């Protein structure tokens, strides 16, 4: 379980997050949604320790963010940041291989190599395993990073807007892979999403943020409503239901 209590955050003089307390149970996909500037990415990067936590407390299982070693946390929590630009010229297989680093610290064994191959196969990366990262499409690159996180073999996975710049096939493919990881491997996935329809289709739980405060939490068909769109997103788009699932009519 990821537990946040009394988390506040300031950037410059502006308060980005206001006293957030939230429990995210183990298992399933939780989508963090909200308008631009709501604090979604900030919240995620605090849990991922990409931004130092100054006020409040965050724990992942028994590990306290800021109070545990980076190595221990890397075996429990994998992250995929918003910018996946790598300046080093790496092949796909090398990148996925780095996922094992928290476990072998630079000396991979046969078990590590087997896990890397398994991750490549599962994410359909075997045909392009020896290509360089700058020679493949954006969708393939995102998939390679998710495969790396998968190879890291952690219970928790955090992703910050992984669907940015992906076409519909790439975005759906990636979300299906995440869904599959949640269902088959009991991963707990926390994901920042922009598109409410993707959240409605793939997430088990939704946490909506507005102005640094939690506006709503719950299952997609309970949370996503006309009122949510009006109050949180400041738009008058309508919701319609198809096969019992809410859709935003854009």
């Amino acid at each position, binding site marked *: 379980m990821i537990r946040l209590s009394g988390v506040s955050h300031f950037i410059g003089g502006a308060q980005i997050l206001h006293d957030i307390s939230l429990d995210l149970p183990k298992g399933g996909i939780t989508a963090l949604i909200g308008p631009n500037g709501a604090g979604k990415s900030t919240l995620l990067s605090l849990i*991922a*320790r*990409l931004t130092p936590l100054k006020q409040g407390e965050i724990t992942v299982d028994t590990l306290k963010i800021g109070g545990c*070693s*980076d*190595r*221990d*946390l*890397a*075996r429990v*929590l*994998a*992250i*995929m*940041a*918003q*910018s*996946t*630009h*790598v*300046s*080093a*010229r*790496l092949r796909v297989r*090398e*990148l996925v291989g*780095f*996922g094992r*680093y*928290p476990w072998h*610290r*630079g*000396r991979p064994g046969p078990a590590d190599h087997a896990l890397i191959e398994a991750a490549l196969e599962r994410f359909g990366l075997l045909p392009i395993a020896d290509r360089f990262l*700058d020679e493949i499409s954006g969708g393939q690159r995102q998939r390679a990073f998710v495969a790396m*996180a998968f190879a*890291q073999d952690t219970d928790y996975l955090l992703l910050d807007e992984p669907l940015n710049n992906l076409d519909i096939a790439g975005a759906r493919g990636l979300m299906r892979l995440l869904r599959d990881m949640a269902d088959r491997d009991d991963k707990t996935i926390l994901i920042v999403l922009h598109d409410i329809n993707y959240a409605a289709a793939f997430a088990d739980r939704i946490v909506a943020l507005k102005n640094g405060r939690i506006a709503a939490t719950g299952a997609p068909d309970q949370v996503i409503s006309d009122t949510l769109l009006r109050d949180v997103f400041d738009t008058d788009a309508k919701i319609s239901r198809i096969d019992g699932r809410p859709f935003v009519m854009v």
Partner: protein
Amino acid sequence: MAKRLILLSALLLVACAIYIGLGAEGAWRFLLPYRATKLASMLLVGIGLSVATVLFQTITANRILTPSVMGFDALYVMVLTVLVHVLGGVGYASLPAALLFAMNVAGMTVLGMLLFGLLQKGARGDIMRLVLTGLILGILLRSVTEFLQRMIDPAEFQMVQSVSFARFTQVEPSLLALSALVTLPALALAWGMRNRLDVLGLGDATATGLGENPKSGQAQALVLICILVAASTALVGPMSGGGGSFFGLIVTALAHVITPSERHRILLPSAALTGCIILVGGQTVMERLLDLTTPLTVVIELIGGILFLVLLVKRKRA
């Protein structure tokens, strides 16, 4: 990759043998210690600067930067100029070499640490800001040096000039030992960081996710860079003639071509070997074949400048 490293090692051995053996006239008893000292200093400097450059390029994620942008060379020349200015040419010449060496190493390491410490406190530990600050500081130091050089006696100015370029011709064995004492542990530590450097090269966010704190890794690498550059510069003088040093740039660019790998366990030895081959080979050609007294660095600057432009034009990725 391993094959290419062995090939590089063989090439270096040949270069060393030619350097020691070519044009040997007179008693080996005198010749050998003299040439061996010069050779050892070249190897030490070649390895030290190459490794420092690889570390620097990894933590800045930039292939066209070398540690000399941090103003180390400029500080060295300034200390030199100030000493000559205050003590006079004779006074400077009579200073104990070991004292001078210690002063230079300490000064340059402190400068590097100070720069980094200030930035860690003030800014958000932004590595690019550190580099830019170092660049500006280098310009400041150079301006002060130039100002002082305008005021000193022409004969003393000549003296400053002659030691402002790296020279392998007059290396004291005691200094060599001192320099090795500083450089070798730093090299061992850099080698120990090889796997962590691979991860740091993935970018701050990804490195954090893999359990490698980028701040502490960058800080450790920076300490090693300061020590390595300081020890090399204090031993033979600055490798650059005033601008940025192109030696490290040539070495890393070649190493990336010879052994195309991002793994530091390959890149570090490959760069170190390449650096040594360039220094020893170049010095042999300059000294023995062309019979020139021009410092090797002048030639390296020329070739490096051209290579720098080629790299800039050819670079596909931003």
